[in-house]
């Protein structure tokens, strides 16, 4: 059995040394494992190779430094142990689909591309069971009606939005149509790292329900990777981090839309319980071709 606490310690060691010249063998030493056993256990617990985790974290922090500081690109590369601007650019482009200089000019990045550090909560979450394996499927376009808000750092507003939707539907004096409930998150490219637009909605026939606070939206036909999120609403970012940073890079797929669709079925119940399950659908397409054209 892997020792989850020890692997979490190894992650702490890596995080404290992103700018230092460390080898995977040093990580193994830090937790008193042999190199072989460490590689095996690290993978089993985090679903990353230790080296892949180190590189993705270095690149993500260097991207932050590019956006948030005036430090020269070459210095940022050296800070994070890339020996030359070429090595840095190549690795950077592989992760972000763009060159460091271009990212700096853009002045923003799709926050979903920056890998946050793995916390103990992430590690516990991804080891809850095998449910984080997606199904790839096409879905037809559909229409939803609901309420929408801008979510910044505090996700608590999402729960409030669901309450608001229930009140709005009641006020309309009608049963919530015949459709399923959907949470739809949209991530505009130039927004802050963890900001998004969130819509709590119910599927409707066009033209949809009407009411003072209600808005309608048509979700286009897309191909999705469908995951099951198990756990309360507040743990959703843990699943999404897994999807973007652990599953996506080795899936052979890439993100195609700024939408993420949460499917709740016909009833919304106990969304804050540990046992709650909902589907998370992330639009993807097979990799190939050059994004940075």
């Amino acid at each position: 059995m892997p020792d989850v606490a020890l692997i979490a310690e190894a992650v702490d060691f890596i995080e404290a040394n992103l700018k230092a010249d460390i080898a995977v063998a040093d990580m193994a030493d830090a937790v008193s494992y042999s190199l072989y056993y460490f590689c095996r256990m690290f993978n089993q617990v985090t679903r990353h190779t230790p080296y892949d985790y180190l590189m993705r974290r270095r690149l993500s922090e260097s991207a932050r430094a590019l956006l948030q500081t005036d430090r020269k690109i070459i210095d940022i590369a050296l800070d994070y142990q890339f020996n030359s601007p070429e090595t840095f650019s190549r690795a950077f482009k592989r992760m972000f689909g763009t060159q460091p200089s271009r990212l700096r000019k853009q002045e923003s990045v799709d926050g979903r591309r920056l890998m946050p550090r793995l916390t103990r909560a992430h590690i516990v979450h991804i080891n809850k069971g095998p449910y984080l394996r997606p199904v790839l499927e096409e879905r037809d376009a559909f229409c939803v009606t609901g309420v929408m808000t801008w979510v910044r750092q505090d996700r608590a507003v999402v729960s409030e939005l669901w309450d608001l939707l229930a009140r709005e539907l009641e006020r309309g004096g009608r049963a919530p149509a015949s459709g399923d409930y959907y949470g739809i998150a949209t991530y505009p490219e130039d927004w802050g790292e963890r900001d998004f637009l969130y819509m709590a909605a119910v599927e409707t026939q066009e033209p949809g329900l009407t009411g003072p606070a209600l808005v309608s939206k048509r979700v286009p036909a897309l191909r999705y990777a469908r995951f099951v999120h198990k756990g309360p609403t507040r743990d959703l970012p843990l699943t999404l981090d897994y999807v973007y940073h652990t599953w996506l890079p080795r899936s052979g797929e890439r993100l195609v839309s700024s939408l993420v669709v949460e499917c709740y079925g016909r009833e919304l119940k106990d969304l804050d319980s540990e046992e709650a399950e909902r589907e998370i659908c992330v639009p993807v397409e097979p990799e190939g071709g050059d994004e940075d054209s």
Partner: protein
Amino acid sequence: MEPAIVERRQMTLLGFSFFGDPFASSGGWTEENEIGRLWKRFMAYFVNHRHRIKHVVADDVMYEVCVEHEETARTGEFEVFVGLEVERLEDVPVELSVKILPPTTYAVFTLRGQQIVSDWHKLIYDEWMSGSGYRKAYAYDVQRYDERFKGVQRIEESILDVCVPVRR
């Protein structure tokens, strides 16, 4: 864990190899990681094309060799070779690779049950070796699987020899 110290002449192995972090796809002790896949490929080849492999020393003894390369400490990537021993090379099928292990002294550890899936590298290299008067002779080690190994599913009943090249 006290090893037997044995001398071995050069060994010539035929089989398949992998380089990388073999646990990238799955770190568990399942066949889903690259070492498991390597074994699966080799066993399928062995079953279907046994007649192509000449001068086999023993049909029921298989080897897994882990080789450290220059980048191993930095990236955690290493080479894994699985195969069997031959007396000499003749008409080697192009799909097979050859691994030649130098003549050396080996410390042979016999692992039983859960020891097989434990961190035995740690026990051997850090704990045993430091007090033994021996040093690592080469940057590889050999796992020797014979009829005493019953498979990962029956690990409690299994026995595995691990051979570590050493010198004084």
